[in-house]
């Protein structure tokens, strides 16, 4: 399946993401999920960014709301707008999961 996963929390209370697989997987960081793109806890990148085979996106509005900019994000992650998210879920992926 082609799956777009939304993460909106920094401290996650589920481990579904780690266990799921998809032929094509996009992880869209929104809300407090944006911290996975910018915070290096104890010097290490968020384990979310280690999900094998996934493409990573971060919503610019939510990033900048919290005081960060494109200069701060991991090179694995692409900045996107609301319009880009619409295109991702309508064109690039078939199913969504807000975890």
């Amino acid at each position, binding site marked *: 399946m082609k799956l777009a996963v939304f993460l909106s929390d920094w401290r996650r209370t589920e481990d579904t993401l780690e266990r799921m697989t998809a032929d094509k997987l996009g992880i869209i960081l929104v809300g407090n999920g944006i911290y996975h793109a910018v915070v290096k806890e104890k010097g290490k990148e968020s384990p979310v960014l280690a999900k094998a085979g996934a493409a990573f996106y971060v919503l610019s509005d939510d990033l900048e709301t919290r005081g960060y900019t494109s200069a701060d994000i991991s090179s694995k992650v692409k900045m996107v*707008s609301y319009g880009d998210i619409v*295109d991702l879920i309508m064109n690039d992926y078939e*199913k969504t999961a*807000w975890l």
Partner: protein
Amino acid sequence: MAELTMGVFPSLVGSMTLDFSFRLAEAAIAKGHKVNVWLSGNAVMMAKKGQRAFKDYSYNEKRMMELIAKGMEITVCEACAEARGYHKEDAPEGMKRASMDWFLAKTHKSDRLLHIGGE
């Protein structure tokens, strides 16, 4: 043009998830998609008109009304609303009230579903 149905459950103020949802709906409509929104759980807080716009609280009534005018279909879970004391006359114009089966039926023909759970 395709059809996107969103099920939104978190509350008006707090998580900013309703702010996200209406902005995403706006972007989808701008791209020519049909958008349906189902509000359940604490998201039925949108079913009380006359919310005041303060700078310290999420305020979505105005954007929601504009999106309804642009063809967004929005329906609120009737039982979830009544349990919170929101009656028919409290609902903003253009918002429908129905039972949960409305949402289930909408998913049938929708090309995409974005279901946003949580409080």
